[in-house]
């Protein structure tokens, strides 16, 4: 019954009687159509409607009886209407019968087409075609009522179960969402806290949905920059944890140990590792310190390869670097938390450690300065990055301090010796370190660094008198200090012992010159006659009794007045001043010696035993005493005749002034009295 013509308003459904089951969906549909929905319906309104309907029916019944008188004239009309209605209904019945016949014929047409073709109407046959409808006999469903009832129960049960499950899952997801929100809020709070403390947070380049913190340094070498990002992941309980990735290592730190000889005398402290549950900031800080230490270790090794000539060696996993003549620094990279022995040089080790850290930061700053400049044009040249100046700077600084100490130790006993000899005028000395002035547009920290490691210079001035001043300017490199000497130009000593024009490269050479110079200065101050005047008979008498200079600047000669001696020959005496270093029982010092003797042929063989005036060779006090003792014992060995003697003034290093506290000071005679004695 595919396509019925549309103007057949046929409903094949039976007219619904009140006996049919009230099926819910149909009822709902009808109510919706009738009233437009359930919103406006309440029990009371329904009751009211029923009451009104009953009233209406009663009214309708009453209205029916009053119309009976008017029925008679209408009977004709009524008859006609009834006739029409009846005809209509007969027509309808006829149609229904034809449809029924067509239907059965069509049904039969499949199985018995000849018989069906007799009874089917041609119109139907054309429209639908033969054999287009089929029918089959089916068994009755065997479900009994009990089963149907069961099925209905089961269906209800399933429905309620599903509803419950839906409700449960919605509740579960709501609570999960809430928990997620809570965890996520906590995570973000922690991330914000980290970011507020200055760490830079960014997305990981590999996993765009994960945040990471950049704990490395932006000026480090590229190998370290790639390792300087750590992921911040959320733990199941909402706390944040740091994941450093595959290349990370355990926390490490650089350790500096100081060795004197074979014993370890000092060590820098390595910090304790942070606990597993430490706040995330502590872990990030530890990671940063570790990567800094690793970079420091790498740069130290790189620099050490170029510093073999300074005695830096790499052994096993350590770097060995001599800091001074006695002390050696040992560097290695150790995991945190190792306990260290402590010793007297701990402060030095700690200082070296801090200095290395500062120097690496300074090197980073220089890197930044370099990369901000416009680059040179692209050419085939590869720019090789020089190793940073880490060990070099430390060695230079230590050498500089050592030099300043050396200068102090040179000049201070010298002045003290002369003080005890009561030389007039009293010599003075100053030692100053002049730091270079860095350009002022650098920030303060850089200026401080520059002044500590660049252009390390010490200037010492030593004045014998106002006109005679020696200026020593010492410049330091990691290996040695070089000394430049200048003498004030209007000094009389300029002609006698001018300073060497070239720069001296060793401390002993400087020391020798200073001693030589001082001795000459003293000798010059004693003598009153310059050596340029020749000795001639006319002056002999006038000159008698005065010391005169000789071509050897440290020696003076005096011609004694003839009245003092019986012989006719003028006799000459020789006075030599010398300054030598002295070493005794672990102390070092200076000895100023005045030695006078007869000069000339009658004084042969004298004075050679007692004079040990080789330059720069420290004279042992024991030797001197021994010689004197021998002299006094032997009496004749040194053949020191009458009018000859030796007198020493001694000053030790690291002694200050004349302290008589321990009662062991020595009383010295003044130079003048000694000189006067020598002239007799």
């Amino acid at each position, binding site marked *: 019954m595919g396509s019925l013509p549309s103007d057949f308003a046929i409903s094949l459904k039976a007219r619904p009687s009140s006996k049919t089951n009230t099926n819910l969906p149909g009822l709902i549909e009808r109510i919706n159509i009738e009233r437009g929905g359930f919103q406006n319906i309440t029990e009371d309104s329904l009751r009211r409607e029923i009451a009104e309907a009953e009233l209406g029916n009663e009214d309708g019944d009453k209205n029916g009886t009053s119309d009976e008188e008017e029925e008679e004239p209408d009977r004709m009309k009524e008859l006609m209407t009834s006739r029409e209605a009846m005809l209509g209904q007969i027509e309808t019945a006829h149609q229904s019968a034809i449809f029924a016949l067509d239907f059965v014929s069509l049904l039969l047409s499949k199985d018995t087409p000849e018989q069906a073709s007799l009874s089917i109407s041609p119109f139907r046959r054309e429209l639908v075609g033969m054999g287009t409808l089929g029918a089959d006999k089916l068994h009755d469903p065997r479900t009994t009522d009990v089963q149907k009832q069961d099925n209905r129960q089961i269906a209800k049960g399933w429905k309620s179960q599903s509803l419950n499950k839906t409700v449960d899952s919605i509740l579960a997801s709501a609570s999960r969402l809430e928990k997620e929100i809570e965890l996520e809020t906590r995570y973000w709070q922690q991330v914000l806290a980290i970011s507020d403390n200055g760490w830079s947070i960014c997305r990981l380049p590999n996993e765009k949905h994960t945040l990471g913190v950049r704990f490395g340094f*932006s000026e480090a070498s590229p190998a370290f920059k790639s390792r300087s990002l750590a992921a911040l992941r959320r733990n199941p309980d909402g706390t944040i944890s740091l994941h450093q990735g595959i290349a990370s290592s355990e926390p490490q730190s650089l350790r500096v140990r100081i060795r004197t000889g074979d014993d370890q005398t000092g060590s820098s402290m390595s910090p304790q590792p942070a606990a597993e549950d430490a706040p995330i900031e502590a872990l990030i800080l530890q990671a940063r310190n570790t990567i800094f230490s690793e970079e420091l270790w790498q740069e130290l090794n790189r620099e050490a390869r170029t510093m073999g000539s300074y005695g830096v060696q790499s052994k096993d996993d350590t770097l060995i670097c001599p800091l001074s003549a006695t002390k050696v620094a040992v560097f290695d990279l150790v995991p945190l938390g190792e306990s260290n022995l402590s010793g007297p040089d701990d402060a030095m080790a700690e200082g070296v450690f801090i200095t290395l850290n500062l120097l690496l930061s300074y090197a980073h700053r220089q890197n*930044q300065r370099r*990369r*901000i*400049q*416009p*680059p*040179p*044009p*692209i*050419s*085939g040249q590869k720019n090789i990055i020089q190793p940073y100046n880490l060990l070099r700077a430390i060695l230079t600084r230590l050498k500089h301090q050592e030099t300043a100490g050396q200068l102090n130790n040179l000049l201070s006993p010298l002045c003290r010796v002369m003080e005890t000899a009561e030389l007039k005028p009293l010599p003075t000395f100053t030692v100053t370190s002049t730091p270079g002035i860095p350009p002022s547009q650098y920030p303060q920290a850089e200026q401080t660094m520059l002044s500590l490691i660049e252009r390390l210079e010490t200037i010492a001035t030593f004045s014998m008198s106002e006109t005679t001043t020696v200026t020593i300017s010492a410049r330091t490199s990691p290996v040695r200090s070089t000394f430049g000497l200048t003498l004030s130009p209007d000094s009389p000593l300029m002609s006698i012992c001018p300073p060497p024009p070239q720069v001296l490269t060793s401390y002993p050479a400087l020391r020798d010159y200073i001693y030589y110079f001082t001795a000459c200065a003293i000798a010059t101050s004693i003598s009153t006659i310059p050596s340029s005047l020749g000795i001639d008979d006319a002056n002999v008498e006038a000159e008698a009794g005065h010391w005169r200079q000789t071509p050897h600047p440290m020696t003076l000669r005096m011609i004694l007045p003839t009245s003092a001696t019986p012989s006719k020959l003028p006799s000459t005496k020789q006075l030599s001043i010398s300054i030598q270093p002295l070493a005794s029982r672990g102390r070092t010092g200076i000895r100023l010696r005045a030695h006078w003797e007869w000069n000339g042929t009658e004084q042969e063989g004298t004075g050679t035993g007692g004079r040990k005036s080789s330059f720069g060779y420290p004279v042992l006090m024991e030797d001197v005493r021994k010689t004197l003792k021998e002299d006094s014992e032997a009496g004749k060995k040194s053949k020191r005749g009458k009018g000859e003697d030796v007198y020493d003034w001694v000053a030790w290093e690291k002694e200050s002034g004349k302290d008589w506290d321990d009662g062991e000071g020595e009383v010295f005679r003044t130079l003048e009295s000694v000189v006067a004695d020598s002239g007799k």
Partner: protein
Amino acid sequence: MHELFLSTQVANEDLQRALRILQGYCGMKPVTLLRRRLIWEGPRTRSSLKGIDPGLLQKQPWKSLYDQLVRQSYVIALLYDIDRDQFGQSEKAADEDGEDLIDCDQLPGSLRWTDLPDPAGGRPVNSRLLITIDDEKGLCTVLKSMNHRFIQEMIQECHRFVLGNIVFDLSRYLQLPPSDTEPISSIRTRLPTYESLIPLDSENKWILTASALVLNGSNPDHKQKGIDELMTVRTEFEGCFDFQALDRHIFDTRVKF
């Protein structure tokens, strides 16, 4: 030296944003420069171009410049670095006449000569010959002796960033307002206040140039390296700045008559 470059424009409202982006990309704070650009035009003849004073020919950059100037007359720029507080001195020094006058010959300046960029030829960047002579005094007199004429002066305000071999240059050009005291085509001896400078471009746009220098332009490997770096910059800034190789005639510095 060859200069490979790409350019784009940045509106004035976007300046701060552009500075921040470049600051993050290059990892450095911008170096802000203020320069005076003095534009000099070469002689308007086709032949008998004198080139440079032979005395200067001994030094290398002058020699290459001579080779170029002998063939063709160009417009040359002289650059002088100035401080912000050198502006507005005419008001401060109103009472003291004759002092604080800026004589460009006394100051060290740079001479910058650029050629017409090479035709595109498959290269995605602009490429031009460049000669700079830095830190020389007396450049004005030298140019005068070469028959060059002073045309005009501009102030260039520039923020510079560096990353690797690429230099990012965010500049705008400002004109000096007409002055009562000094004639138009002479080099100013006093600078007006900074606020009175007029942008050269009516929309007050900034020009962002990414450039790389190659020492030897005829070496294809070096040039390719520069080009690759510029291309990387271009792809990385896609969506943010649109770096382009502009039509080469925009940068034409030849004197036409």
